[in-house]
Each structure stands twice: as C-alpha cells, then as structure tokens.
C-alpha cells in the first residue's frame, strides 16, 4: 500500500483518497468549513491549507490527492499563519452576532476563531450589512450576514436531496445564496442544511431561539418517524424535548434525517399526555391508581373465554413491550388472536431515506412474537370478529387504531371491554375502558428493528415522574446536575407514565405470568434466550449504532 507522512506519522492510504480524508481517518484534524465527507469537494473556503514538501505553495488538503511518499505538515508555521489569514478574511464582514445566534456553541467559525485565529483584525471600515431574516423555505431561516459562502447547502440540495433549489448570487464581498426564482428551500430534507451549515446562516425556524445549545442534554436515540429508524440525538431542556438532530450511521442514514421525522415525531411527548392510569366509571373516564386499573383489567380478562379476547401489539412500541404483550396473550391467557396494525403508505418511499412503512418497529413487533398463533385471527380477522360479536375484549398496545379510519373507530366502539396503552389522549382512548399511561420512546430503554433488520437502541432522554436522571444513567444538562427540589426546572414537566412492558408484566403477574423483570435489559436478556434472531445479543453488543440481525423470511420488511 502507498504511504503518506502527515505530521510525522507514516500512514497507509487507498489510491484516490485526498489528504484530508487520510488525515481524518487517522484522527488528525485538519480545520475545514466547506469540505464535508458526504458531499463533493468544492475547495472554496481555503481553511484546510497545509504545507506539502516539494510543493511550491501551500495546498488545500480537501482536493489534493494523497500520493506515495508525500510529506504533509498540518501545523507548520506557514500553515498556521495561512489559516490565521483565512480566519481574518472570513471575519472581516462577519457580524458580532454570537450572543443572538442560535449556532453559538456548535459553530465551526466560533470554535476555529478561538483555536486558529490570532484574534486581531486590521479591518477598521464598516462591515457589509445584509438581510438578517430571510425565510428560505417553510423550515429554514437564512441570515445573509453570517454566511461564509461555503456552498455546503447548495451541494446538499443538488447531490443528496436531488433538488436544485439554492445557488450563489452576486460577487466579491456581496456574494450570497438565494433560492432560484420561484423556488423555495422545501425539499423533504431541507433542515439538514441547518446541520451542515458551519455557521449560523441557516437555522431551523422550528427551534429558533428556543434554547442555547449548552443548556440542553443530548441523548443518542433513533427516529420513530418511519421504518428506517434514522439515528439521532434528542435534545432536552427542563425535561422538554426541543429538537432532534441526525447522528451519523453509515448503514442507516449517513449524516441525514428527513424534515418530517425531525419535526413531527417528538412534539407529542411534550403535550396532552395520558398522565396516570384512567378507567371508565359510570360511563366517564376518570383518573385512578395503578392497582385499581390493573385489578379492573384482570377481573375483566378473567370473565371472558380466550376465544373472545384479542390482543394488538404495536409497530410504534419497543420490542420489549411487544414481547411482554405476546407473553401475556399467548403464554398466559392462551389467546390466539394477536397481531398488530401495519402503517404503510405505498409509494411514499423516495429512495433516499423515507420508507413506505410509517412505523418504526414493524419487524421488531413480529420478531418479538406479535403474530397470530396457529388458527388465531390476524389484524383484519380481529376487526371482523369484533364486528360479528365474536371478539368482545381487545387489549391494544400504543397504537391509535380508531384514528386509522372511521370504520375502525366504529368497530372498536362495539367492544365490551377495551384496554389501551397510550402516550397521549387520542381517538382510541376515548373509546377505552382502561387507559394505561405509556412512556414514550424517549422515556424508556428499549430496542426496535428497522426495515433492514437492524436492531437499534432507544434510550431515555425525558424523565417520567418515577425516574431519577442520575440513577437511571440518563444524560444530564448542567441544570439537571445541580438542581434541587426547590428549583422549578428540576421536578417540573414530568408525566406519570411507565414503560408498557412493566404494566403488562403487572397485569400478567396476577394471571399466572411468571416474570419479575426490574429493568428493560432483563426483558431483552429473556428475549435473547428464546428468540432466535436475538441470540447472543445484549444492549452492549447493540451499542450506539445498532447491529444487523438475521431475519428469517416469515418476517417481511417493507421499505
């Protein structure tokens, strides 16, 4: 293999790699603005200038191909002074906006100014002024003064989103970006431009001014917007989710996530939650305690034959939740009618990230045992059974069946007894006789399986009433760490909810289910011992980026 020497280290590389790629692969950082590992090389910011022996001038590391015997100095005196000059140049017209800029705290320009600039400017004239609040599209705000013209956003739209929407206009110190006439920055991936914009020129309108980044905790998780399960980070302040941002995973989502997933899969956690168990008393839904709700459920389940009962798992719940439901239904009550609702929108997949399957864990629900037993009814059969009066009791996990169609809503209203696990009050809970308050995906540990058959982790980012951030090992912000019970931020905004598997286990334990799991990791260990696809796995093996599992052909995945 050919060898290159960077900062005195001799490194191997593959033909065709650029200097910056080889350096990055080996943990040597070369400062850069316009280069991005997933985009084409533009070479316009000049920040990655390095000194290469036997070359007459400094060269940019992003577009210089590594060659055998090349000797590169990233931090030589000449390179350092060139970087300082580039920084001075970039800052000539850059506003002193950091205090009001959403990017502050995660800004490349800010970080590099601190690390690589001398802090002196010789520019005494008035800075260029420009438009500060341009709505480039429905979700993206543009501040023209802050733009450093790196073209990352333009290249993203052209190369990743496949939708030419942005371009440079004007020249020299007046150069700026703009949408093409009649166009908006409204592709389904537009908010990724706010992530890759190295400065605060492009920011999210949804997150605008909501919080300073250093005040939030961030937790590695996955998006629940569709069957891809893009890896993401959940940003939380005062126990409220404020934004999701994509997290790199080569196998799943690269550096990206779609706007729909980013904007519309977390807001339900903050509003209109089912707070504590509820039961129907004299026709009215009233709040009650766990003991009463469980006792009521058990007494009703015991009053019917297994043939009159059906269970619905959920492609929105974790594998652990579905597993416990299957154990309760098949293993304990000997109910054969168990399935879950599919949420497919055929034709909505776009070949980038978005899948037809709008639920995150269809494959996982099936693998965890939520499928009809031999001679049992499937989802359609269960609904027909309810209509014909054969099925009288339905136990329904975290899915708003009634909202899927008016017909389903009508069907559910015919039941004698309906138990629902729900995070929010919805069309199905309105019809329910018992509502168990389910912890949302961001409030529990668990796993999901995406359409590729990749098992991925959920982690709690938001605390429910009976969780303690530090005892649970959750990520904590500065405020979380030092809050006392007297501080408003420490104990507010918490709902009384529990992971569904816990409540299912309690219901089951009164009916002969012999499980006493304390934490979700134990439930998974149990699953690993009896479900072939999960053999030999545990939460540590799954890790931060998930693991591909063997899915036999009975479980079919939909993209």
């Amino acid at each position, binding site marked *: 293999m050919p060898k290159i020497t960077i900062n005195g280290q001799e490194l191997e590389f593959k033909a065709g790699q650029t200097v910056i790629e080889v350096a990055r692969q080996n943990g040597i950082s070369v400062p850069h603005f316009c280069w991005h590992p997933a985009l084409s090389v533009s070479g316009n910011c000049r920040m990655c200038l390095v000194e290469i022996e036997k070359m007459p001038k400094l060269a940019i590391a992003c577009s210089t191909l590594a060659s055998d015997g090349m000797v590169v100095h990233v931090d030589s005196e000449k390179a350092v002074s060139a970087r300082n000059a580039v920084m001075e140049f970039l800052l000539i017209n850059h506003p002193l906006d950091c205090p009001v800029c959403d990017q502050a705290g995660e800004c490349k320009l800010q970080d590099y100014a601190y690390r690589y600039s001398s802090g002196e400017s010789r520019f005494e004239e008035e800075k260029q002024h420009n438009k500060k609040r341009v709505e480039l599209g429905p979700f993206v705000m543009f501040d023209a003064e802050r733009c450093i013209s790196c073209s990352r956003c333009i290249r993203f739209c052209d190369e990743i989103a496949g939708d030419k929407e942005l371009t440079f206009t004007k020249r020299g110190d007046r150069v700026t970006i703009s949408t093409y006439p009649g166009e908006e920055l409204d592709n389904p991936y537009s908010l990724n431009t706010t992530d890759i914009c190295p400065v605060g020129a492009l920011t999210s309108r949804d997150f605008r001014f909501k919080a300073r980044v*250093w*005040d939030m905790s961030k937790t590695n998780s996955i998006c629940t917007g569709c069957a891809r399960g893009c890896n993401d980070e959940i940003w939380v302040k005062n126990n409220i989710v404020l934004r999701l941002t994509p997290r790199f995973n080569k196998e799943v989502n690269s550096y990206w996530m779609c706007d729909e997933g980013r904007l519309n899969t977390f807001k339900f956690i903050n509003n209109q939650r089912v707070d504590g168990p509820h039961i129907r008393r004299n026709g009215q839904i009233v709040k009650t305690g766990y003991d009463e709700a469980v006792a009521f459920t058990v007494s009703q389940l015991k009053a019917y034959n297994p043939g009159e009962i059906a269970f619905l798992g959920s492609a929105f719940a974790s594998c652990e939740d579905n597993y416990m439901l299957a154990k309760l239904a098949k293993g304990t009550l000997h109910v054969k009618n168990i399935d879950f609702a599919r949420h497919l929108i055929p034709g909505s997949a776009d070949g980038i990230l978005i899948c037809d399957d709008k639920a995150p864990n269809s494959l996982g629900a099936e693998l965890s045992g939520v499928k009809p037993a031999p001679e049992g009814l499937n989802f359609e059969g269960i609904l027909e059974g309810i209509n014909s009066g054969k099925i009288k009791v339905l136990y329904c996990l975290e899915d708003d069946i009634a909202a899927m169609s008016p017909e389903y809503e009508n069907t559910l209203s015919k039941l004698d007894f309906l138990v629902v696990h729900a995070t929010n009050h919805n069309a199905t809970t309105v019809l329910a006789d018992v509502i168990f308050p389910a912890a949302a995906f961001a409030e529990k540990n668990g796993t999901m399986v995406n359409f590729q058959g990749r098992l991925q982790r959920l982690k709690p980012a938001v605390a429910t009433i009976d969780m303690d951030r530090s005892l649970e090992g959750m990520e904590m912000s500065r*405020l979380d760490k030092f809050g006392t019970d007297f501080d*408003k931020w420490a104990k507010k905004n918490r709902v009384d909810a529990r992971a569904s598997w816990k409540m299912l286990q309690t219901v089951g334990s009164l009916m002969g289910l012999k499980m006493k799991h304390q934490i979700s990791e134990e439930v998974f260990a149990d699953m690993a011992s009896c479900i072939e696809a999960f053999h030999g796995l545990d939460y540590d093996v799954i890790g931060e980026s998930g693991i591909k599992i063997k899915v036999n052909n009975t479980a079919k995945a939909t993209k």
Partner: protein
Amino acid sequence: MPEKKREKDLTIAEKLYIPEIVKGLGLTLKSMFRPKFTMEYPEVKFIPPASYRGRPVLVQEESGTERCVACGLCSRVCPSLAIEVQASETSLEKERYPVKFEINMLRCIFCGFCEEVCPEEAIVMSKDYELVFRDRSEAIYGKDKLMVPIRQVEDRIEFLRNFK
C-alpha cells in the same frame, strides 16, 4: 504532671479591674462627642456609591423595552444558577428578547458576574439591598420586578464604563 507556671500574676489593682473599667467608660464618654457613623435605619436610608453591588436589575430603555437580547450568557456564567432566561422573537432589530427573565434571589450571591458578561449592558447591579420575602416563590423575581428605567442606573453604567 508539672504545674503550669503563669507568665505573670495579676496585682491586686488589676484583679479589681477598676482601672480598666474606668478606662473603658472614658472611651465611651469620648465617643459621645465624636461625629456619628451609624444611621437610624430604616428612617434614614443608606445610599450606596456606584461601586456597590446590590440586586441585579434589567435596564429598561427610554422606549420602555428591555435592552436584554436573551442571549443567556448571564445565565451561563452565574455561579449559583440563579438566572433563567427564555428567549423569543421580536420584530425589533435586535431579533430576540426575553419572554421570561427570572432571578432567584435566594440563589444570587451578588457576585456581579452577570453584569460583567452581558454584551449589551442590559443587566447591572443596582443599589437595592432591601430584599424581603415570606416564601421561596416570592424570592423569584420576574421581569416586573427586575426592569428598572435606565436613568435610575445611569451612575452604575458610568462606573462600569470607567472601571470595568
């Protein structure tokens, strides 16, 4: 155990303490004719100099709006986590303003860091040292209590410009 030796035994006169008492009374008598340093608080109020660090307040411009841009730097620097700022958008040129600005006066230690870090001269230490509350929630001062017209804090701003 060997007996401890006193350094010096008191004389009879010293044991009676009378000369010392007389000396003390003399000092008291002299002080009665010296100028007074104390004040009859609360009838008479102490007005501190500009260098004094009383409770932090928000500067209210002549136009009635706060100077603060809700950058949250004061909240970040505050060593006792006393400040909570929630920003929101305004149509004014400054783009952002604090919809909520609260200082927990039970947490504040009057260090003045918030004033020092503020990029807008929007939070300054006032001369107010009279802080009274009957429960914890009253100690959390919102914008209504924190906003003070700029002319009331002019001398502090002047002081900061000269000495900060």
